[in-house]
């Protein structure tokens, strides 16, 4: 569903992506792993159509990322974009109006699983609750590609557990793929079909998670530590 060749993205002070070749197949959960500054967010933004590549090519469902592909891709940004003065219900209505694939019937269930209610005000939510709400918004859409940028970053263990559980329970392995970026591998270890280690804008390791465990005799978490620490 995604084909990337020779992708380069340059910021004034750094080459954020320095020649990425990558194919994303349907029906898998991909772990996009690397330390801060390795290019994970930039890569996801390029796939989401929020950044233009400086060199190389990206095809999402056979097309250049843009208006058409955005309608088919759910993207959870790392930043906290929720308007503080709104209630959860207002945010939900606001977002629902933007997406034709919004599953109104699903939202209540997802909110309930995350211990959230529509009456709550955003500015009364903890960081963990806001992160959970962002995931609800990403998962309430019926998309074939889900991009999750650091969904666990800086959260308490209970929120992290809930987020991992929801990714698992909502993942549709027959027709969907998820790319999840994180620099904290431990709790997401069991989620991955495929693992991509990103290092200073290049792919260091890319393989099936089970194969890596078998070949290195290490968990993905330990392999990550060995490679990056």
């Amino acid at each position, binding site marked *: 569903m995604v084909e990337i060749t020779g992708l380069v993205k340059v910021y004034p002070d750094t080459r954020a992506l320095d020649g990425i070749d990558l194919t994303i197949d349907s029906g898998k*959960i991909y772990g996009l792993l690397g330390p801060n500054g390795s290019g994970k967010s930039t890569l996801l933004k390029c796939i989401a159509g929020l950044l233009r590549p400086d060199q190389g090519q990206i095809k999402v469902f056979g097309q250049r990322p843009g208006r058409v592909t955005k309608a088919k891709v759910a993207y959870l940004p790392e930043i906290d974009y929720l308007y503080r003065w709104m209630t959860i219900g207002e945010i939900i209505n606001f977002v629902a109006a933007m997406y034709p694939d919004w599953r109104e019937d699903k939202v209540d269930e997802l909110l309930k699983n995350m211990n959230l209610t529509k009456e709550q005000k955003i500015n009364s939510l903890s960081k963990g609750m806001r992160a959970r709400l962002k995931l609800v918004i990403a998962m309430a859409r019926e998309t074939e590609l889900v991009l999750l940028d650091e969904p666990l970053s800086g959260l308490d263990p209970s929120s992290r557990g809930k987020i991992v559980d929801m990714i698992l329970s909502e*993942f549709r*392995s027959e027709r969907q793929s998820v790319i999840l970026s994180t620099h904290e591998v431990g709790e997401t270890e069991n989620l991955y*079909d495929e693992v991509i280690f990103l290092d200073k804008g290049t792919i260091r390791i890319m393989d099936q998670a*089970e194969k890596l465990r078998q070949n290195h005799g290490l968990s993905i978490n330990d392999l990550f530590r060995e490679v990056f620490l």
Partner: protein
Amino acid sequence: MHYVKEGGESLLKIEFDKAQPIYLQIIDQIKKALARGSLNPGDKLPSQRELALTLGVNPNTIQRVYREMEQMGLTETLRGQGTYIKQGDDLVKMVRSEMVNTVAENFINEMLALGCSKEEIMTLVKQLLDKSIKLKG
């Protein structure tokens, strides 16, 4: 982590050693449950999705577990009804003896690697066995 099979009995208790492929560990646990009799021929296994959620692993991993078990002849899938442990007394015997042999072989190999003689191993095994039988009454 726990999985409770239909009827409420504990089937799998998995603390993943993540340095090994996860699908192999799950198959191993299912075989152990068979060997010790907490899972029996004819028992229905949970749906793939259900097991994935209970164990907190990717559904594709569970799909692989079920595929490999079927290839090994451990299970059979009845269309529209689910996956069952295959009928037949031989199956449990086979699984059990395979697992017992593996444990014994590993033990012997490690003892030999430590430079133990045959007599030493035999004596030690006998001593330890007597002791643990006494302890358990």
